[in-house]
C-alpha cells in the first residue's frame, strides 16, 4: 500500500511541477491543482497507513494511536483542501482577467517571439 501511495504522490507531483513550468496559464492552474492533490495525499499519509482503524475511541479504552486512526492529519487535510480550493478559484479569476486584459493566455502577458 505504501508503494502505491508514494508512487501516486510522486506521479502527481512530477506532473504538477512540469505543468506549472509551462507557459500557458491554464497549464499552470492544472499543475497547481495536481500539486495540491499530491500534497493532500501526502498530509493524509503522515498519520500512518492503516485499514480498519476506529475513527473514535471506544469508551473506557486508553487513548493510544494503536487503537484509533490519527485524527489530526485528517483535520489538516480538510483545512488544506478548503484553502487550496478557494485559492485556486481566486487564481482562476485572475487568470481570466489577465486573458481579457492582455489578449493572450501566456503567463507573461505577451507571446514570446516565434
Amino acid at each position, binding site marked *: 500500500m505504501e508503494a502505491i501511495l508514494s508512487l501516486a504522490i510522486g506521479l502527481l507531483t512530477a506532473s504538477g511541477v512540469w505543468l*506549472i513550468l509551462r507557459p500557458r*496559464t491554464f497549464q*499552470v492552474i492544472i499543475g*497547481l491543482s495536481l*500539486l*495540491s492533490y499530491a*500534497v493532500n495525499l*501526502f*498530509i493524509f499519509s*503522515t*498519520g500512518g497507513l492503516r485499514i480498519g482503524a476506529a475513527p473514535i475511541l471506544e469508551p473506557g479504552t486508553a487513548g493510544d494511536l494503536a487503537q484509533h486512526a490519527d485524527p*489530526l*492529519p485528517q483535520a*489538516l487535510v480538510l*483545512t*488544506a483542501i478548503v*484553502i*487550496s480550493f*478557494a*485559492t*485556486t478559484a*481566486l*487564481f482562476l479569476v*485572475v*487568470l481570466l*482577467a*489577465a486573458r481579457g*486584459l*492582455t489578449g493572450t493566455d501566456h*503567463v*507573461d*502577458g505577451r507571446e514570446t517571439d516565434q
Partner: protein
Amino acid sequence: MNSWLDHLAIAPIVIPLLTGAAMVVVGERRRMIEAGLGVASTLLLLAVSIALLRMADSTDQAMLRVYRLGDWPVTFGIVLVVDRLAALMVLLTSILGFSALIFSLARWYRKGAHFQPLFQFQLMGLNGAFLTGDLFNLFVFFEVLLAASYGLALHGPVVARVKAGLHYIAVNLTASLLFLVGVSMIYGIAGTLNMADLAARIPAIPAEDRALLEAGAAILGVAFLIKAAMWPLGFWLPNTYSAASAPVAAILSILSKVGVYAVLRLWLLLFGDTAGDSAGFGGSWLLFGGLLTIAFGSVAVLATQHLTRLAGASVLVSSGTLLAAVGTGQVAITGGALFYLASSVLAIAAFFLLIELVDRGRELGADVLAVTREAYGDETEDEDAQEEVGIAIPAGTAILGTSFLACGLLLAGLPPLSGFLAKFAILAPLFGPGQDGLSLTGWAILIALLLSSLTTIIAVARAGINAFWKPAAEAAPSVRMTELGPIGFLLILCVILTVQAGPVMRYMEETAQSLHAPRNYIEGVFTGSADAGTGGRP
C-alpha cells in the same frame, strides 16, 4: 486582573475580522461609514497593540501571555502567544495599517472594489500570523493574509498589476504547498504542531528520524524564505511591489517581514542551542543566503530606473540584511537586527507612500528619460543657466523633498536617523570586547552592509535629483494633508526611534535574549495562562 484584559491577546485578530465583515454588510455605497469603520478599527488596533507591547514588556518574570482558544489544554487546543517579538510585530502592523489606510482615504480606495474589507482581512491575517503558537495556524493565517494580499495587489487593475499579480499568486500558491509538505513531515516525525511542544520534543527525536525532520524543516524554511524574498527565491518581489498601488505596497512591506519573522521565531526556537544534535541547523544557509540577497538587492537598487522598483529593491536589501544578521546566531546581533527591522519597515512604507506623491504630476516614464539623458548627455542643459539667482520652492515640493531625503537617509543607514543606529547595532557586536579580530563572516557582513548603504545612497540621490531639481515651470504635484500626514507620521516614528534609541534597544535586546533562550517561552506555553497569564501584574 480584569477579565477583559485576558482576552486582549485575541483582539488584534477579532477587531479587523469583525470590522471587515461589517464593511461587507454596510456595502461600498456608504463610503463615509466604511471609511469611518476602517479608521476606528485601525485606531483601536493601535491602542490594543500598544497595550500588548506594554504587557509583554512588563517586568514580571512570566514574559508571555498565552491565550488558549476554548480553554483546551495546550497540547490539544490552539494557543495564541504574546511575547515581546509578537507584540512588536503586531505594533508595527497596526502602525503601517493606520498610515496606509489614512493615505488610501485620499483617493486610492475608490479605484476598485472592496478595498476596505480586504485591507481589514489583511491586517487580521498579519496579526494572526504573528500571534499564533502552532504551525498549522501559522499556515492558515498565512493563507488569510495572502488571499487578502492577492486582492489588494490587484486593486485598481491596470495591465501591469494583473501581470505581476499573476506571477505573485502562482509563486505564493506553490510556496503554500511547500509549507504544507514541511508541516506534515514535521508532524509525521514529531507528532505535534505546537511550536513550544515541538521545541521540547526535538532533542529527543531518535537519530534515524532526525534527517527526515530536518528535511521537513528545510522545506518549511524554503516556504518562509520565498515570502522573505531571499535570493534566488525573491525574483517575484520587485515586480509585485512596484506594480501595486501605494498604500498596498506600504502594507506589503511588512508582508515580506512575515517570512523573516517566521524564520526568526522557528529557527531559534526549534534549532537553538537546546536542540541537541540539530542545534544550529541551517544557520549558514541563512547567513550566506542573506549576504547574496544583499548583493543582489544592491545591484538591483543601482540598476533600477523607476522609483517604485527602487523601493522594491530596497525591500530585498532589508530582507537580506535581516537574514544575514539572524544567520550569525549571536544574541547581540539579533537585537540589532530587530531594531533594523522596526526602522526599515517604517522607512520603506513611508518611501512607498512618498513615491506615489512624487510620481504624480510627472509624465509617464520620466525616470527612464532622466537616466537616459544622464547617459547620453542633455542637450538643453545650459540654456537658462544664468537666468535665476534665487528660486522660490513651492511648499509642497519642499515637504516632499525633505521627506525624500529622510527616507533616503533611513534606507541607506546614514546618520543622524535610526537607519544608521540600526546598522551600527548590527555591526557593533562584531567588534565587541569578546571578539579578537573579525572572523570571515564578520568581514562579509561588514562589507555587504556598507556596500549596500553606498549603492542605496547613490541610487536615492540620483532619483532625488531627477525628481526634485527640475525647472520650476513644471507644476508642483498637488497633495493633500491626508496623504502627507501618514508619511510624516511614519518618519516622526523613525525620529522617535532615533531619539529614544536607549529604551527601544533595551527592549530589542531583551527580545533577542528570550528568543535565543526559549526555555521561558516553552515553559510559559505549557503552564499556560494558569499562572503565566494571570500571575502578579500590578
